[in-house]
């Protein structure tokens, strides 16, 4: 038996040196809920949904390196309760109206909420005022749905080499901005071919003139829950 293993919810998980708990779990086909993590990008560790207990101590599994012999708890009542509360926070922080959203059924926030049995948003809604940016000819930005995962920021910076997106403000006023003095996407060098155009886990970055191509009920997470990792297997 290799000593490069750890235990995740009772299951022995092998890992390679330098892998995080999340990476090793994904490789082994074990799902840990997450939103700001994406296997192609440098981990960010901000949504905190992937928090696990490693030897009894909370840690974000997307940034915590796997270590030999560590006992990791993830799929527990306590952690899932807390994850549900985090999801509820993300829902009340923005304006999420799933029934009218083009991403419904493809949205990781919605899918994770279904998967963790989130039945209501629980907290009082903040109803922030977030104007839509429809300036670009091919793409629309609906900031109402932004969960500040920074995947578009990382994709544009690290893959596209462009820095189209960035984070501004502090605290609850944190928000996504685009790289133009006008503040409008049309005045950036963003194109439909950018990696950043494809990574939004929710419904902020939307292609124009293409709506409901796949009927509701037949979309990725309508067919399989996100914990079955349908999105990951395709990647």
């Amino acid at each position, binding site marked *: 038996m290799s000593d490069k293993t750890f235990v995740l919810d009772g299951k022995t998980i092998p890992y390679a040196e330098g892998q995080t708990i999340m990476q090793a779990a994904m490789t082994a086909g074990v799902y840990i809920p997450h939103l700001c993590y994406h296997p192609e990008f440098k981990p960010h560790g901000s949504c905190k949904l992937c928090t696990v207990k490693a030897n009894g101590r909370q840690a974000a599994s997307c940034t915590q390196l796997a270590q030999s012999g560590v006992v990791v708890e993830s799929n527990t009542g306590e952690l899932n309760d807390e994850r549900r509360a985090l999801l509820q926070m993300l829902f009340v922080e923005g304006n999420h109206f799933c029934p009218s959203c083009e991403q419904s059924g493809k949205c990781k926030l919605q899918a994770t909420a279904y998967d963790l049995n989130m039945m209501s948003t629980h907290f009082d809604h903040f109803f922030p005022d977030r104007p839509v940016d429809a300036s670009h000819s091919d793409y629309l930005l609906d900031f109402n749905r932004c969960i500040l995962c920074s995947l578009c920021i990382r994709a544009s910076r690290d893959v596209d080499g462009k820095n189209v997106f*960035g984070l501004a403000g502090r605290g609850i006023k944190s928000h996504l901005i685009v790289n133009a003095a006008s503040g409008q996407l049309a005045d950036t060098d963003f194109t439909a071919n950018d990696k950043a155009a494809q990574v939004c886990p929710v419904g902020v970055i939307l292609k124009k003139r293409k709506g409901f191509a796949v009927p509701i009920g037949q979309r990725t997470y309508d067919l399989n829950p996100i914990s079955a990792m349908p999105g990951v297997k395709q990647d």
Partner: protein
Amino acid sequence: MVSDTERHATYLDPILERHGFAATSLLQVLREAQEHFGYIHADAITYLTQKLKLPRVKIEGVATFYSFLYLQPRGEYRVLFSDNITDHMLGSAALMNQMCQQLWVEPGKVSEDGLVSISTTSCTGMCDQGPALLVNNIAINRLTPERIVNICELIRKRVPLSAWPAEFFAIADNIRRRDILLDSSFESGSALNALLARGSTETLQEIKLSKLRGRGGAGFSTGSKWEFCRAAHGTHHYVVCNADEGEPGTFKDRVLLTGYADQVFEGLTLCARIIGARKGFLYLRGEYRYLLDHLLVVLQQRRDKRLLGSSILGCADFDFDIEIHFGAGAYVCGEESALIESLEGKRGTPRNRPPFPVSNGYLDQPTVVNNVETFAASSLIALRGGAWYAAIGTATSSGTKLLSVSGDCERPGIYEYPFGVTVAQVLADCGARDTQAVQVSGASGVCVAAQEFTRRIAFEDIPTAGAFMVFDHSRDMFEVARNFVHFFAHESCGFCTPCRVGTRLLQNMMDKLARGNGSPYDFAEIEKLDQLLLSMSHCGLGHAACNPVKDTIAKFRPAYDKRLKHHEFEPAFDLDYALSQARQMTGRDDAGAHLGESK
């Protein structure tokens, strides 16, 4: 014809040159650039993107993170009232109201003639001589209605700050009790001479022997930190002095940097020799901008005495110098990894740890970050030995601690005690009467009730970064907690979900209680939030954000109970409260403009 962007080159070029066109100086450049118009002009950002080779999103991201940087015009005179609970207890709200009325301006807005803007800011570190404010980043204390009248007059007449009466800017040290640190007649260079005589390795042993622990609050062993950093591989090593003293109620680092800067800088230099650093930083909170000239003089004196610069004290291989970096209104930058991000000219977001700064700090190089007081103490230890220091205080908390005492007492100010002093002793010494509670170590610390006054200030009992705020029985402990909750919501960096949203939810709940709409259900909700913040937050800010509420609910329950409207459930939505905006817009406040029984 000069283009819009080039118009900014005239004042930006000298700033950029002074900072070597380095992207790591972005925050410093923005601070200085702002002084030209009182805000950072959009075209100035365009110019900086070219000169610093940074994308606009990056510059705007930094500029919008720090409270003291503005992308929109502010008043020619930017007035910020310190919003700490101790300022409130001294009447700051009424004084701010008076100023707003006299100058015809609404809080948070700019007057129509662009002359003045008035708002609040987190604790400015003047709690022993409040109420306090900052005008164009310069501190004015001991506000009274008369002083406000005078300030309004000066603003109206557009008198430049440099011509305002000097006594407005006088800042007292208020040192009330001295022990080994404040009593030392420290001689420049004496600790460095002791270091060179004894050797670096041996001096590190003395620091370890002294059992000195970090004075910023966390209490990590200073000797171990220096040893780890010394052993860590890197092309450069760095030493950073954390003078971001942002914890509400703390002001001891201000006093140390005023009267003991030489000893602090000597501590940094010692550390540099031990870990092999050639460059150090003093990260100074923006609120202490007025200290700059004094600190630059001290640094220059040390260079003149060959205690800084190249070949220190004639040692050919001992080169070290210290640069001063300013913060710009962000409490979270007191967290060491956020401070390092800020030093690198970025948003002050705490890093994912591990790795820790001792191995991967400034520019990813091994870095020691210590508190001002820690460096001052290390100079003493180098001079007088570790065993001497370890014999003072308690077994696990060696040495002395500076307390910043404020609130309801006769003699607020700085008190230095050996660790182990009881809360009761401090209260007796500062002339506190009829004390209901003491908030030790600021908003993130512990609220101590009367039955606990025999407890001791020490890492093993009540650890503290230094704040000691006293509340007598006339004070409403609910309002104390609510003030701290607002502080955390304002200062959350927004990086992680639980702290970004949770601190705001908590603020909303406390405001709901304050409007008299609470129910026991809210207590259960607060408890759940507390657990979540503790479990899921990215850094200590989120972990501590519920402390004040948790402590005061446990110890001062009647202050909460009297705000309960019903004893089961009460919705947050309040029809009458929802109408308040409409009332403000229409200027009505008659009975017909109200609904229901609520105020």
